[in-house]
């Protein structure tokens, strides 16, 4: 089986290649088959491989396809390294990806650029797989940039609309900023270890660097820079909300389930570096915490369904960062998986709604959809519950609870981080159910046509089930102790032990978390369902308005960057359009012409002046010959 590893990324690539070459000439059905099939097959292979992995329990599978290049000891190859971590990612990518592709066949059914869409989607899946399967950082970087490109292509999919193009460019450029940091990190790594092979680095790093070594910290921070860029964390998060300009399946796949978690993967992958660089790791945690709060607040204020989800994505990834930051590695990955399920679910539901309301995304214009589209309602509700981490029944609870728990009780746990996480959880459930109530309850505001078909609902159901039960593979030990996932991760990522005296009364904190999330739901119910009047009275207060505007604009980061970087750059570029340096040379030319005019005055054509000229020359020469 492990000889077919290369097929996993190869199939989507092949699919997209075929679609690029012949897409325009193929029938939609064929395009759909190619697009969905390629991903489907790699999902299949992944599952088989995963089963084999579970049964054999090897440390990892390794396959080199070919040597990429080799210069003076720098020889990265196109090679894949599969261990538990990457398998989880591959599974999520291919499987969720497959579902989303399936969904898209219906969602994009009447789009002119059907084939282009699937070409890009496949390309994306392929690059994402490259990213998580790469055995060296350069190949990882290839996937890393590849997904960047695809998100650019897909966000700007409806390119006729300038706003979309803007969002697309924004996404690409901002992530590129992060990538630059990462690239520099790679340079340092290469300089230090003479290779970019991940395993080699992980093994050598502890020997070369002591804990807290300056270089290690530097590298850690640089890698973090890359991660932050891709995962839409502070301070490079601004692109993600705009990224919703793309078709909804794209948002689901790229900006919820997979790509944005690349940062999480990178950090988890290079965990050794971060353990050697406590400062960097703390930074991860802090960034996570701060981001999840900021994003949460922004989510509270949004009206665009997808933007709410986008901000919630940011904040959920914040949780993952938090987990990684406090060293709860497997918890972070676990949350990634669960989040992938329910966030994809939520987006797809949103997509269904938007489609039904012919591309209406404003929640204020929605409402009362509970009756009209029950499937979507229930699935969405499940997703929401999981996102809000409603206790016991949802897997979101287990994953998030784990994070919160280790944030407090982990070796480098910290009360403030914990409180941030807790408060974040509260906000999360508030905005989640705000969303639910605004969309599905109350009076219908927009007439909907063509309710979702099978191709749409099936993925929803599957994802709904996953986001309910997916969490049951990892249950707190004081509660039907079950640790399949962390056991799976154990060989790859270091485990974590809770501080004893807290561990005694862990249940207390679980209850607390449960209460908080339920409380959030209640608040949402209060404001958006029971007595909206309170909300309005609140909104009228000037402070609230200001805050609202501030949060609505995502804490004004966009404006900040615009005025700080973009505008000055464009201004600089435009004033120098004619290239100042050129004028220097033209100046020289003018000077020469000036001299010409001057000299040609002497050629007056008058004989006596010529004679005079000679006389002057004579005097000159004679004086020289007499004086010298």
């Amino acid at each position, binding site marked *: 089986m492990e000889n077919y590893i290369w097929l996993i990324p190869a199939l989507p690539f092949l699919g997209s290649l075929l679609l690029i070459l012949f897409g325009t000439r193929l029938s939609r059905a064929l395009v759909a088959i190619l697009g969905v099939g390629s991903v489907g097959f790699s999902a299949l292979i992944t599952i088989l491989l995963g089963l084999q992995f579970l049964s054999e329990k090897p440390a990892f599978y390794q396959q080199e396809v070919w040597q990429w290049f080799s210069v003076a000891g720098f020889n990265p190859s196109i090679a894949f390294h599969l261990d538990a971590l990457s398998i989880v990612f591959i599974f999520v990518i291919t499987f969720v990806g497959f579902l989303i592709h399936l969904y898209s066949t219906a969602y994009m059914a009447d789009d002119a650029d059907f084939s282009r869409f699937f070409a890009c989607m496949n390309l994306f899946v392929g690059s994402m797989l490259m990213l998580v399967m790469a055995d060296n950082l350069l190949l990882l970087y290839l996937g890393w940039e590849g997904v960047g490109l695809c998100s650019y292509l897909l966000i700007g999919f409806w390119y006729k609309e300038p706003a979309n193009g803007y969002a697309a460019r924004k996404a690409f450029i901002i992530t590129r900023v992060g990538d630059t940091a990462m690239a520099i990190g790679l340079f340092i790594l290469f300089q230090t270890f003479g290779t970019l092979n991940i395993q080699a680095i992980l093994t050598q790093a502890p020997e070369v660097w002591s804990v807290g070594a300056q270089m290690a910290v530097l590298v850690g921070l640089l890698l973090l820079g890359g991660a932050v860029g891709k995962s839409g964390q502070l301070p490079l998060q601004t692109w993600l909300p705009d990224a919703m300009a793309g078709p909804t399946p794209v948002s689901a796949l790229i900006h919820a389930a997979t790509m944005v978690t690349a940062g999480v993967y990178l950090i988890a992958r290079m965990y050794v570096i971060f353990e050697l660089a406590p400062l960097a790791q703390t930074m991860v945690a802090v960034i996570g915490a701060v981001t999840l709060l900021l994003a949460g607040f922004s989510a509270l204020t949004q009206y665009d369904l997808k933007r709410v989800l986008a901000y919630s994505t940011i904040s959920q990834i914040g949780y993952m960062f938090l987990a990684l930051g406090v060293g709860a590695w497997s918890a972070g990955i676990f949350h990634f998986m669960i989040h992938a399920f329910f966030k994809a679910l939520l987006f797809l539901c949103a997509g269904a709604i938007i489609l039904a309301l012919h591309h209406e995304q404003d929640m204020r214009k929605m409402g009362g959809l509970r009756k009209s589209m029950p499937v979507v309602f229930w699935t969405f509700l499940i997703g929401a519950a999981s996102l809000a981490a409603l206790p016991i029944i949802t897997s979101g609870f287990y994953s998030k609870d784990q994070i919160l728990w280790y944030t407090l009780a982990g070796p480098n746990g910290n009360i403030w981080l914990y409180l941030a996480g807790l408060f974040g959880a509260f906000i999360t459930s508030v905005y989640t159910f705000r969303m639910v109530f605004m969309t599905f309850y109350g009076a219908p505001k927009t007439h909907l046509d063509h309710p979702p078909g099978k191709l749409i609902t099936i993925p929803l159901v599957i994802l709904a089930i996953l986001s309910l039960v997916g969490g049951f593979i990892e249950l707190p030990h004081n509660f039907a102790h079950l640790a399949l996932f962390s056991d799976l991760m154990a060989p790859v990522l270091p485990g974590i032990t809770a501080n004893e005296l807290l561990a005694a009364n862990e249940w207390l904190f679980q209850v607390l978390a449960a209460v908080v999330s339920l409380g959030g739901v209640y608040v949402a119910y209060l404001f958006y369902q029971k007595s909206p009047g309170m909300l309005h009275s609140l909104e009228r207060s000037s402070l609230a308005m200001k805050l609202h505007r501030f949060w609505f604009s995502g804490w004004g980061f966009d404006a900040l960057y615009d005025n700080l970087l973009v505008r000055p750059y464009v201004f600089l570029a435009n004033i120098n359009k004619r290239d100042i340096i050129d004028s220097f040379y033209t100046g020289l030319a003018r000077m020469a012409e000036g001299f010409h005019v001057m000299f*040609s005055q002497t*050629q*007056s*054509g*008058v*004989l*006596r002046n010529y*004679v*005079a000229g000679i*006389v002057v020359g004579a005097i000159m020469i004679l004086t020289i010959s007499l004086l010298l």
Partner: protein
Amino acid sequence: MSVSTMEAALLLAGVLFMLGLISVLIRRNIIFMLISVEIMLNAAGLAFIVAGSKWVQPDGQVMFIFILTMAAAEVSVGLALILQIYHQLKTLDSDAANFMKG
């Protein structure tokens, strides 16, 4: 003759030369310019004679003869040209002949 008189004679030639030179500079009438150039040439001739007599050689006078002949030839061509110029410009003012400049 003593050297000092040689110097004096040479000085005379020099003065003559300068006179010619200046009058070429200030005269506008082409004929006069031609004449002044001749003066300069004769000054040079005189200088040759002086030099020749200084070294008691005939060469100086030989050169003078050369100069005279050459001057004659030059003047003849020159006058011919001046005629042409006069035909065309109806004047002998050398400053008028400045079609070509720049």
